[in-house]
């Protein structure tokens, strides 16, 4: 890597860093000093989110050229979006709806409602600061929540129990993706004492009857929201949102196509963090489409110039389950240590990316399909075959060398599946690493402990 390129990479970092801080500072300027002081006092987790620019350091560390640009662009998308979500703490709070991450926000946006994804803090905070949700996990456990429950709903419940939740007016949830998540919403409802609607996802969803049933569930949810909130459905607006989402999905498919190249032109956060944010938090946002368009351009540019995201790419892997929230730097370390490239994760892989917006019914059916067959939803519910089919399809499609499972100890659903997966991988001769860890709590398995597992795997199975 040349000296000029190094300077350019460093300049890119500083430009991005300044841009992000400008966005962060604008929020208190919008709210004014008194309101900001009150907010920080009422929502102490704001201090952690104020450190969101750390994410830039994490995702650009050791990355060069277009790969670095792509990762910086993802953070530049997240920061202003997050600040605008935080505006919901004080603005239009009568329209603020708390929703589970499995409930599509497209419908809420189309109804003119403001969203507060309940799990957002539990996901984002450990990414920004590894230890930031430990306090909330302890609060939940001290209140009697079983310690072996998934730490994501535990941290969400801890925030609710601490009364640090924004002034939401209604709750939307579903029976996905797991028992821990479902149980947490009963506590949320009891503590907040506001109306709650729970969507019923059918067990076996690969048939028209299930899609019709769940589209009807979405209709029931819309009717319920029109009664319990000031929101009114604007079907044209929903169509526009879904069409924008489709555009973004089309770019994502193009991006995936480029990832099949060996070596891959982009990897890791540029692929999974972009999806996690744009498809789950801000679907239908034109800036998300712009981001994916930019990622495709960067990837294609690297392909044309034969530049690898990871200069010494030796191994390619998929990460199954959510990314290691408190240790997302694992893969920048693995890239440098072993030339190990994270091509995609299971949360990003969506089998049904498009929504048919020709009619209201087809739009709702498209949303229903996306939600029922969404990542995690289809892996922790329904037949076990969903899990294995996706896994081995991705392995072949992206020409991978191994499968990594983020073996989150709180995920009972996948714990059972992983035993069968071990046998299947052994029969197929696919190297498999199941990383023992906890999704949000680094006290269970430390970063060193995770690295040790990866080292052992690389040394003994991959002979590195």
């Amino acid at each position, binding site marked *: 890597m040349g000296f000029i390129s190094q300077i350019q990479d460093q300049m890119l970092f500083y430009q991005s860093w300044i841009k992000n801080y400008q966005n962060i500072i604008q929020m208190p300027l919008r709210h004014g000093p008194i309101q900001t002081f009150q907010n920080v006092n009422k929502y102490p987790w704001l201090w952690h989110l104020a450190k969101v620019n750390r994410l830039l350091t994490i995702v650009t560390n050791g990355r060069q050229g277009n790969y670095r640009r792509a990762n910086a662009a993802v953070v530049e998308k997240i920061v202003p979006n997050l600040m605008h979500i935080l505006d919901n703490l004080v603005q239009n709070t009568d329209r603020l709806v708390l929703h589970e991450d499995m409930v599509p926000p497209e419908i809420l946006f189309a109804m003119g409602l403001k969203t507060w994804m309940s799990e957002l803090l539990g996901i984002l905070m450990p990414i920004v600061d590894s230890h930031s949700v430990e306090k909330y996990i302890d609060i939940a456990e001290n209140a009697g929540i079983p310690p072996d429950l998934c730490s994501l709903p535990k941290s969400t419940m801890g925030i609710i129990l601490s009364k640090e939740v924004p002034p939401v007016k209604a709750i939307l949830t579903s029976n996905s993706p797991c028992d821990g998540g479902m149980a947490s919403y009963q506590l949320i409802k009891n503590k907040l004492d506001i109306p709650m609607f729970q969507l019923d996802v059918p067990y076996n969803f690969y048939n028209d009857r299930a899609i019709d049933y769940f589209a009807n569930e979405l209709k029931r949810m819309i009717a319920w929201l029109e009664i319990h909130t000031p929101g009114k459905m604007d079907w044209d607006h929903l169509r526009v949102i879904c069409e924008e989402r489709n555009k973004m999905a089309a770019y994502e498919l193009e991006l995936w196509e480029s990832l099949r190249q060996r070596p891959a032109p982009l990897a890791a956060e540029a692929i999974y963090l972009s999806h996690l944010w744009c498809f789950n938090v801000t679907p239908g946002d034109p800036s998300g489409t712009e981001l994916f368009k930019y990622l495709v351009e960067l990837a294609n540019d690297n392909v044309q110039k034969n530049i690898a995201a990871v200069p010494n790419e030796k191994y390619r892997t998929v990460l199954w389950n959510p990314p290691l929230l408190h240790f997302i730097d694992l893969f920048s370390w693995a890239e440098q240590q072993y030339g190990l490239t994270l091509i995609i994760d299971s949360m990003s892989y969506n089998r049904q990316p498009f929504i048919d917006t020709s009619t209201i019914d087809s739009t709702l059916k498209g949303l229903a399909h996306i939600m029922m067959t969404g990542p995690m939803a289809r892996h922790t519910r329904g037949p076990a075959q969903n899990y294995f089919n996706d896994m081995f399809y991705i392995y072949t499609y992206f020409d991978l060398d191994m499968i990594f499972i983020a073996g989150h100890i709180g995920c009972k659903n996948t714990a059972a599946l992983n035993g069968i997966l071990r*046998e299947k991988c*052994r029969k197929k001769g696919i190297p498999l690493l199941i990383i023992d860890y906890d999704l949000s709590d680094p006290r269970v398995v430390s970063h060193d402990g995770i690295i040790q597992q990866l080292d*052992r795997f690389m040394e003994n*199975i991959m002979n590195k």
Partner: protein
Amino acid sequence: MHNKLFAGCDVGSTTGKAVIINDNGIQGMAVCHSEIDPEETAKIVLAKACASMGTEIAPKDITYLIGTGYGRREVPFANENISEITCHAMGAFSCLPDTRTIIDIGGQDVKAISVGRKGEVIDFAMNDKCAAGTGRFFEMMANIFRMDITDFSNLSLQSQKIIPVTSQCSVFAETEVITLLAKRKNPADIAAGIQSSVAKRCFTLMKKVGIQPLVTITGGCSKNIGLIKALETKLRMPIQILPVDPQLMGAYGAAVLAMKKA
């Protein structure tokens, strides 16, 4: 001694082991108690292995040395260090090429290893978080019975009826065993319960990597006859006894790898 010499030095948590080989097979071997400093352990055991050859051979005469075991990174005079998982697999494979599954029970951890047709590691699972079922656990149990470890490992063979020891944790297991002894239960039956509970733990670990014959056992606890019998009962298949001291298998595998690499 005109052949080149190759050695493996396994610096374990409880013992240090060294094996020296040449084209004609094993020439020297030694076991010693681990010192606090792993480098010191390696020096001592290697010197002992050289001495066991009965010639003027010194560690400096070894062509290629591979360090293994938990302290392997602290052996500065080794040419290379390789994980004990890989070394145990290669060691057992070199002794018995049909070996497909290994249970390695060391002083402070237990590993199940699935071995390929070339002696490579296909999969492994390990318990390095809990002392139950390790060499230390057996030392503790033998101490309760006021026996040395050899007598304790043979005790369960006299059992008429196994008394299950259900505690998963070594501390609670100690309490449970003391209580059973105080109730004047047959010590042999209690010992059989202990061996059976460890065999169950090993079985669970081995299932993770898939149990394929031939199955063999390595590590210091491979000398525990009672455990081998309990494990054979649980597996419903025989455990192959290795022709080389199974406690030395990590060091032997390291020596074989040293010969291949040199």
